């Protein structure tokens, strides 16, 4: 893939908004890879945590928004706990989710939940799931 770099993308309004919403400074990330190394769900992500940060540094907001990484991250904070720069990819991904959900675009619908799940599942899983996936 060839990336056309431009200042307008690097300093794009979505990127600014993301930094404002999350309080994270994207350029602090120096790409050491420690977050990807420890992420328990990295195997299921189409863009792993370290690259999420890199893509955003390059202003590739749209590519990141398409990634399933947003919805796979459970927020276990393993990335943040060990980040030498004090960045939290989990927070960044939550910010991205929030930006989607605030547009009213649900990731998951109530009807999709199976009855079997509802029967035995802890309430907290349902509440948490809705908070993460539903606007």
């Amino acid at each position, binding site marked *: 893939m060839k990336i056309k770099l431009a200042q307008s993308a690097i300093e794009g309004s979505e990127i600014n908004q993301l930094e404002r919403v999350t*309080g994270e400074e994207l350029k602090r990330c120096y790409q050491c890879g420690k977050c990807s190394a420890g992420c*328990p*769900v990295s195997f299921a992500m189409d863009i792993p945590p370290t690259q999420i940060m890199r893509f955003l540094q390059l202003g590739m907001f749209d590519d990141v928004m398409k990634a399933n990484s947003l919805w796979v991250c459970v927020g276990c904070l393993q990335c943040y706990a060990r980040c030498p720069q004090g960045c939290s990819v989990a927070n960044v991904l939550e910010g991205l989710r929030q930006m989607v959900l605030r547009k009213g675009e649900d990731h998951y619908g109530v009807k999709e939940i199976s009855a079997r799940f509802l029967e035995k599942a802890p309430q907290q899983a349902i*509440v948490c799931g809705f*908070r993460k996936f539903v606007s």
Partner: protein
Amino acid sequence: MKIPYYPGCTLNTVAKDFDLSAKTSALAMGFELAELPQWNCCGATFPLTPDNIIALTAPAKVLSNARLAGDTLTTLCSVCYNVLKRTNKVIRDDKERRSTINGFIEADYDGSLNIIHFLEILRDRIGFEKVKKAVKKPLNGLKAASYYGCMLLRPFEDMGIDDSEAPMIMENLVTALGAEPVTFPNKIECCGAHLAMNNEDIVTRLSGNVMTSAVNSGAEIIVTTCPLCHYNLEKSQPKVAESTPGYKNVPIVYFTQLLGLALGQNEAGLGFDKNQWDARPLLKKKGLL
């Protein structure tokens, strides 16, 4: 001694065994978990962006009500503990967000509550030495793996209950109860959490990693402190056993169930019947029932 107690939604429903065994054990240890007269759901997840203030209002309301009951609040569920403790810190340290939140919930809460986990009561207020002395039926020979998961420990600077990489609080408790602690590599890894709702594959894989890691390290029983971890492990076990040659299912219990048993409480009041993988045959085999 009465300690104000927040059960949270799950302990009032599917994790009744956790609630029950904790209350019973507390009485046996000489204190009472006094459930708050009024409480609501904590929100089940701490919002990771500072911008999401609305998600802080539910836990803030719990805290503000709890403050009327005393200066301390204890809880059992790891997620509740995480959400309440972190929210409390935000309200205590961030004046701006404090006033916004108070505006929403129509209260004047200042973050002066001390949020402690049940484990902290045992370790810091009572002391594991005293717990050990109170043990009537030592869990001799029981190889118990303590599974911490994420929310009890991270982020360290907010939670601070124990070392976030190598916690020992549960092992130390299990040791005090006379059991043999099994420490295993994956004890601080994620179980898959709320993905239980829509991504069973990931949950099975993550919970599977936890359980195989524990069992390979010699565990006969896994001890947890979170109803969601408990659920994910229990539910994933058949698939894990299916795909892991030589794997044998193990019971997954709450630490309070073992605590109550060791303190000589009647098994019937500890909710062992509610566990999907019955611990009683194992406990009988070990002569503990």
